[in-house]
């Protein structure tokens, strides 16, 4: 009986592999639903470590990001946290930026320094965004002091949620000014610049770009964190569709892998998206920042593994990446449970 279960295959995958992908998909889904990023960033290295060829790993990861982004966007749409106009405006810049970024890589490849430059840029960018979030979380902790944990996310005004740097950028009146979904205004130049910058990074590094897109919307354009996550997911949906189309044309998307991952992530993304309505972002931002710093170290170790030709370092890098993501996923679920108890008047 057990033997027949273990020999069962669905879409070319055995039960153990399906269980692995569903569990991994769940973790990525929670992460993706809560932060609006983390799809290709986590899935592509996982598939590469599991022995899938790079085009299959990237193509399947793109298709997975598209599917998860659809689910998470619908969920955020229900909560009114997606600014479609902003997403569409950014998308024009993103598309142009991706083209420019990929041309830059080809240019560096001609010079024979593409891998080194891309690797170092990736490590520095992850570290910089990690420091930004960690510092922001620590400053908030200091400012809030003893009141931390007592604030209800529903009672936060949008002004409180928008970072000071974004409010300063919004104060410069550079026409044409666009009205965002929350009523605030942002220059079309800022929006296009952010879109172009995010696209450039995305095309240059060959990643989905959610880890840049979400902070850029939050810190530069200036929306609430929840709206930044929702709008970033909408951006992920569009870039995921384009990526899936490109790799789908080459016939390298593994539908079995995508389906198994989606079964897990669909549930995780619902939970992660719902958690944004309960969990005070300040409680989790610090873990997010630390995770990005660990991810920066993990990517650095992976680059070292290639240069020094020590394959075991690649596994260390993968374990660091998944371990830190798992920790943040657990903290989201933990703080979500605490928030539910608080909301129902149960002492934490």
């Amino acid at each position, binding site marked *: 009986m057990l033997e027949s279960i273990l020999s069962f295959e669905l*879409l*070319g995958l055995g039960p153990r592999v399906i269980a692995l992908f569903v569990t991994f998909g769940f973790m990525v889904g929670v992460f993706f639903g809560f932060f609006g990023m983390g799809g290709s960033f986590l899935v592509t290295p996982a598939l590469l470590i599991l022995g899938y060829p790079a085009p*299959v790993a990237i193509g399947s990861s793109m*298709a*997975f990001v*598209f*599917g*998860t982004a*659809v*689910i998470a966007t*619908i*969920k955020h749409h229900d909560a009114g946290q997606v600014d479609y106009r902003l997403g569409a405006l950014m998308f024009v810049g993103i598309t142009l930026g991706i083209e420019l970024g990929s041309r830059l890589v080809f240019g560096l490849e001609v010079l024979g320094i593409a891998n080194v430059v891309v690797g170092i840029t990736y490590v520095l960018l992850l570290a910089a965004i990690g420091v930004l979030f960690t510092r922001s979380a620590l400053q908030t902790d200091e400012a809030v002091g003893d009141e931390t944990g007592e604030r209800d996310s529903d009672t936060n005004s949008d002004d409180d949620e928008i970072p000071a740097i974004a409010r300063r950028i919004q104060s410069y009146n550079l026409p044409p000014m666009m009205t965002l979904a929350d009523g605030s205004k942002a220059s079309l130049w800022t929006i296009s610049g952010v879109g172009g910058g995010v696209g450039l990074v995305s095309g240059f590094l060959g990643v989905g770009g959610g880890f840049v897109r979400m902070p850029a919307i939050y810190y530069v354009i200036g929306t609430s964190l929840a709206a930044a996550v929702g709008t970033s997911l909408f951006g992920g949906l569009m870039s995921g*569709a384009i990526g*899936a*189309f*490109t*790799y*789908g*044309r*080459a*016939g*390298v*998307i*593994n*539908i*079995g892998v*995508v*389906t198994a991952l*989606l*079964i897990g992530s*669909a*549930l995780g993304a*619902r939970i992660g998206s719902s958690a944004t309505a309960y969990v005070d972002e300040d409680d989790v931002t610090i873990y997010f920042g630390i995770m990005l710093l660990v991810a920066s170290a993990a990517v650095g170790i992976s680059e070292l593994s290639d240069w020094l030709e020590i394959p075991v370092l690649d596994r260390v890098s993968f374990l660091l990446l998944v371990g830190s993501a798992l920790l943040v996923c657990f903290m989201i679920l933990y703080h979500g*449970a605490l928030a*539910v*108890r608080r909301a*129902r008047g*149960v002492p934490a």
Partner: protein
Amino acid sequence: MTGTELLTGVSPSLQALAVIGIVLLEAVILYVGYGGVEKAVAPAVLNRLASR
């Protein structure tokens, strides 16, 4: 199993659109399906969380 096995003899663009269509369909089915599960199970889970 890869996307190429889904349709034979059609253009790569059509194959790619078919793959996107399948992923979109899966995503919608899973969203609706888990929505049903959420409606049925969420109140009990939230009560359990609050009572522990």
